């Protein structure tokens, strides 16, 4: 089920798309295990888990800060692979791991720089110098919770909102990307 495909005719024709081809795993460090978890993450992904609101790219995997000692691991869906189970196994004992692929709808606006409308749309300063590639913000839009990040390569903004709100959020986003 695609929120955009079902409710707009131009879902993929525009620079606003819904990302349906990823799995999202939420990991949270166990108490006292932050350092060893990071060590393991570096061994696994080749990068550190960001300790500030940042998103880092690691060989096709995007690691998004999601609160203190919490991250979203966003991976491309692959047939025959269970990303969640693999991560749960990898981080067993050092992190709590849950599959949240279905928790949020992720919309993407492909804009290298924020449009004027996007810039004024949220209580987050989207100015190019203030919200840089790789920056993350957990915030809300008209009372709808959202995690927004700018891709580390600067090509797009992703908005992850609770799935059950995503029709309203999609409506809002279509306006905001204009």
């Amino acid at each position, binding site marked *: 089920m695609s929120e955009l495909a*079902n409710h707009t005719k131009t879902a993929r024709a525009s620079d606003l798309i819904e990302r349906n081809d990823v799995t999202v795993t939420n990991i949270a460090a*166990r108490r006292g295990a932050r350092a060893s978890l990071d060590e393991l993450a570096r061994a696994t992904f080749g990068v550190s888990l960001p300790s500030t609101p940042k998103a880092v790219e690691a060989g096709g995997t995007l690691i998004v800060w999601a609160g203190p000692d919490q991250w979203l691991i966003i991976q491309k869906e692959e047939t025959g692979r269970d990303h969640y189970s693999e991560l749960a196994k990898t981080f067993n004992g050092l992190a709590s791991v*849950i599959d949240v692929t279905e928790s*949020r709808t992720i919309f993407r606006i492909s804009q290298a720089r924020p449009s004027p409308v996007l810039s004024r749309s949220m209580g987050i300063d989207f100015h190019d110098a203030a919200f840089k590639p790789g920056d993350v913000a957990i915030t809300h839009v008209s009372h709808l919770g959202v995690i927004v990040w700018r891709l580390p390569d600067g090509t797009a903004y992703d908005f992850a909102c609770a799935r059950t709100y995503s029709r309203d959020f999609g409506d809002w986003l279509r306006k905001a990307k204009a």
Partner: protein
Amino acid sequence: MTQSAQTARLKDRGLIDRSQSLTFTFDGVPYNGYAGDTLASALLANGVRLVGRSFKYHRPRGILTSGSEEPNALVELRSGARREPNTKATITELYDGLEAKSQNRFPSLSLDLLAINGLVSPFLSAGFYYKTFMWPASFWEKIYEPMIRRAAGLGRAAQEHDPDSYDKAFAFCDVLVVGSGPAGLMAALTAARTGARVILVDESFAFGGRLLSDVRTVGGANGADWVNSVVAELKSFPGVQLMPRTTVFGAYDSGQFGAVERVADHVPVPAAGVPRQRLWRIVAKHTIIAQGALERPIVFGNNDRPGVMLASAVRTYINRFGVKPGETAVVFSNNDDGASTIADLVGAGIRVAALVDTRTVLQPATKSFARKHGIRIFEGAVVADAIGSSRVTGARIVAADGTSQNIACDLIAVSGGFNPSVQVSTHLGGRAQWQQELAAFVPGALPKGMAVSGSAKGTFGLASCLKEGAQAGEAAAVASGFQAKGAAVPAADDEPSDISAFWHVKTAKHKAFVDQQNDVTAADVALAEREGFRSVEHLKRYTTLGMATDQGKTSNVNGLAMLAQLTGKTIAATGATSARPPYTPVSLGALAGEHRGKHFKATRLTPSHDWAKERGAVFIETGMWLRAQYYPKPGENDWLTTVCREVNTVRNSVGVCDVSTLGKIEIHGTDAGKFLDRVYINMMSTLGVGKARYGMMLREDGIAMDDGTAARFADDRYFITTTTANAIKVLQHLELCRQWYWPDLDVQIFPVSDQWAQYSVAGPRARDLLAKIVDAPFDISNAAFPYMAVAELTVMGGVKARLYRLSFSGEMAYEIAVPARQGDRLMRTLMAKGEEFGIAPYGTEALGVMRIEKGHVAGPELNGTTTAADLGLGKMASTKKDFVGRVLSQRPGLTDPTRPRVVGFRPVDRSQRLRGGAHFIGKSDAAVAQNDQGYMTSVAYSPSLGHWIGLGLLANAESRMGEILRAYDPVRNGDVLVEVVPATFVDVEGARLRV
């Protein structure tokens, strides 16, 4: 249409665009104006002086000012659904097709029958509401109020829905500059040159402030040209946002400002997709308030007659709009503004009959200028009264020696000095301070990050304003981390600004208005003082001085100065009323933004919402959710028929209900069990893996907070549910417990409500149905998967799922959860596979009926006043551990055995209907509050029993089984005899759960 006369248009002046002629109507009469006009300037150009009637006395009123402080020239703009009352003609930008009507007149502007209010004015004096209409009290609503509303008041709001859209927006900057006069422009320019992000806001459609209205030279150029060059330079910086037609209406904490941008108020109908107005929240590191100063009138007799105008407004109409505000002027001032005004009047070819100044000695230059142009000079004199009934025809001047004479004129330009605009800079509580030498209030202590610059601060000279603005702009940029570039301040002169405070002409013979918008006179102020309303705040409330759409911008200071004279106190000791947002009125549309109609709030839809819609479900809003309430079949014409069928299907075969709205939270970590022991009243650490348990949480004060189930999937992995309504509250509470109460526990909390689509499959055939969709080798038999078992499994050929053997209905039942995007498919599959059992989907109504039949508590019982014991769950509380709410739940008041507790009820006459909210009263007791023993919390028609049943809170409930009581419901004329029964109505032993 023929070119209308515009008889009062000056040929060679003004910043209007004469190549763009615009047509508009006022009270149905067509007129022409030009692009760049306001409605007020265009009306004046056409010789229209009378534009409205006053609030209380229906006196004729004209145009006093040229800005947003206007008390008189309020009109209804547009018509039909777009009709907007109390629009200030002085700031309404003229557009082609503009339609305006005068307000508060009956039947017409020139003939107003209610002007008779002026004759009965002794009854309408200060405090008249409180005195005249006190008795008899019953008259207030029926007679007095409608009468007053008919006679008094301002414009009429539109009755239809507003057809326009409104937008909300956010902006961020290093330096916010409010106001674009000389100080504001220099501040913005200086800050912009350092590379800072600058926002420049002005309420007008043109930047420049007084530089557009006065004939001044800046840096060798004409003021208006200099403004254009600065605006052009500002536009060249990518970090500068210019916001004309925008009013900063309020200052809020931490550098936040509210502003309204009138995006499309200057066109008849906004273009497609363009909002009418946009509400901005501006977040600024530093702010420079440069809103200038507003001229104040002097209070004299008939000072409200059309033709009495502020001197600065006279100059604005001449210089900015190229309009003659009159043919023959008398200028009345107590400061050097009078001299500037006679110069501009003469320059525009308007005859000046006299300059009347309260000061005893005027500048020699002023006097020689006057002599040269035949202007009579009155030093130490006053204009005591304006002469004329519907417009000014002369001025009665009382000279220094007390002699009085009338001089013919049609314009009285008045200046009582200037009030710096201290509103926004004092919104956060800094009290304005009186400066005697300026005869003005200036800003007090400023909030962090705010500076005030130019005449808003009491700095009245042009050169000083430019310099001060440049300094403020640089300081703000530097404080934001930018390098100073050294500000070059253009050359200009400081105009003379000598003043001698003067407020009120006591020799006036006629009504002298302090507050023209509220019709508050000098006599009202004196009356209020005599009656003891001697604080400015009391004066304001008693007389209404300073209220309404102009918030007393032209009247407050005069009013309090007059009060000070009456009480013999200084103005400093008298003080000023507090200014609060908004600075100027903000439309409700702008405040609502897009949150109206179906967008009033967000809607949450469950994963199988589309299926339910196809199925013809009737939906109900519960919180943000839209939930299926019941699923009518063709031919079922009332909800009860449908709900009874749904209940019967569950009790006899199998039904499915979407319970995805339940709050769902994962609790992980090695201390998860210990943590749950501390937040639930019952023990959760002893729960076996693969099992679930009902649980209840209390607030720390011992009152029940929420109930739900906890399931354990691994030693360190629990999953709990909350009620739909409390999902967010419970999460917040658990985070408080985790982070603040017990920060050392190894617990991680994940809200996962949206991850899972969850369905209750209930009824004797539930297992048969589920057996068809669970993947092998999962064993769903009762032995392998008994009541309260839970498991992770796959269904429908590989879909990850969770199965919980829980029952809310009292039947053998399961809850099955699949990832949200599989919800729609699961629902359709269950319906298809359940066809052979006669499956029915059921909604929240049937769910509610069955829970009442089983005596399960829900929202009406978990109402924030009940304890676990009140709910019949007291025995669940563990005595082996502490938990949130335990200590205070043992307070005597909460353990009192006579507290109302949940118990069941049925009507003695089984055919009678029960009503929620009915109060219990002894069978033979009178229906009075003292006899109240509790009330009915939930009722339902039980299809299983064939009569109405209820749950209720009743004092001493346990000992009263079988007692007959009255269930008294005066609101719906209900008075039913009910019998107290146990709270479980169906399958009392709970046998069906475990089969």
